[in-house]
């Protein structure tokens, strides 16, 4: 009987988590090239992902950056208007472009 109680007690004991409270994911500022259109990036891109996620795609063509903005609108349902989409594309191409339109 004693043994049975012991087993029950063991099963009922809480599971131990490696981290017992909320984990904190650090905030990391990335080096931002300031310029025309950055406001649009800040307002339309950075609430969903870091600036690092953008610049670590490597230098890309204008068509690529426009494609990424369109992907955010079409697939991820980001509410980005045409004017902002253009501004973001121009900014990314100017500062993180590879010099090619396509």
């Amino acid at each position, binding site marked *: 009987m004693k043994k049975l109680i012991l087993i029950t007690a063991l099963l009922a004991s809480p599971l131990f988590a490696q981290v017992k409270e909320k984990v904190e*994911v650090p905030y990391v*500022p990335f080096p931002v090239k300031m310029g025309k259109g950055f406001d649009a990036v800040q307002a339309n891109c950075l609430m*969903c992902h*870091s600036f690092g*996620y953008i610049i670590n795609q490597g*230098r890309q063509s204008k068509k690529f950056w426009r494609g990424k903005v369109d992907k955010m609108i079409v697939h*991820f349902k*980001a509410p980005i208007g045409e004017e902002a989409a253009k501004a973001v594309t121009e900014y990314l191409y100017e500062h993180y472009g590879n010099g090619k339109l396509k």
Partner: protein
Amino acid sequence: MERRDFFKKAAVVAGAAAVGSNTAEAGITRQPIDNRKVSPVAFPEKRPLIMYSDRPPLLETPRDVFTSVLTPNDQFFVRWHMPDIPTHIDPDTFTISVNGLVEKELKISLNDLKTKFEQVEVTAVLQCGGNSRSAFQPIAGGIQWGSGAMGCATWKGVRLRDLLDQAGLKKDAEWIGFNGSEKAAYYETPNFIRELHLEELDDHVILAYQMNGEDLPYLNGYPLRLVIPGIYSDSWVKMLSNITVTNEYKHLFFMDVAYRVPDNECECETHEKKAPKTKPITKMNVKSVIGYPTRNSLVNLKSHVVVRGVAFDDGHGIKKVLVSTDAGKTWDEAILDDGKLGRYAYRAFRYPFKPETLGKVTIMTKAINNIGEEQPLAKDIKWNHGGYKYNGIDEVTVEVI
């Protein structure tokens, strides 16, 4: 160091990747970028790793970790898709649901998973389909990973099959959808869901709550993730919350658009002419990565260097790893470990190398699997727009002094 300086340094390191070369000829694959520094910022339950993004967290394992079969949990790579990851999950109240076309809907607690099902273990490689993407020219879209978006762990949990058996699949059940708990900033953004066809599920597929004998780290999917040995990591859903059985395939972004390669024999296309049809990346190809020495290591003339690294494929198993120290003119067989962790695990290899000449020497490794597939030279790998499935012969150049 002042806190501000600390972050400034982190930012510079993180941003370094953006200043990649853009001068290479179109369609010439090269060695992946291999000079990224570890970030000074450590993420929860992790040592400092190479860092691309904090939201969602994207962390890469440095090359020198790849000398042994198991990758330590705190150095294991991290890749999420959505910015909002639950940062607290209570193991006492957490449940996993099984619903849809089942006889009996289930809500199973972590404790029940650990006590009421057969417990199984599998050692398997987890690799991002975009691992080594920085090898592709022109630069393929996506994070410009070096070769550290991979790791190998012993995963412990329960068979997916056992859960589905307990729920009882209805006759017309065909697809199994897996939901992760990560959330987007907008309600309308599609959730990260993967669908697997029943035929793709064998007894090796498990729901794992443990990794290398410890709880999964939060950033690797605590408290429960899908483990599908041999298959790229985009299907290994993290922080699994719900399993839904259906009879029809739902069209989902992460199935139909992302993680796909050209559906032709070479799985290739050009930047100018993209392939009209694509297919999911699914099974991993044969690959090896050198863990020691690393880039620009100094080694002494006539000293006894032991080259170490890991090799793997999708589960056919590694037959041998060949090493060349003369630019590929001659190849010599490395010594493989005993392979006792199974066909889905890394095979660790080692190779004694005595440098006989001063100056730079390039060490190359080529893995060959049990069905005769071998790694091509980097330059022979054809381009695809997503930069997926790079498996070129690995190279590390050292300096003999």
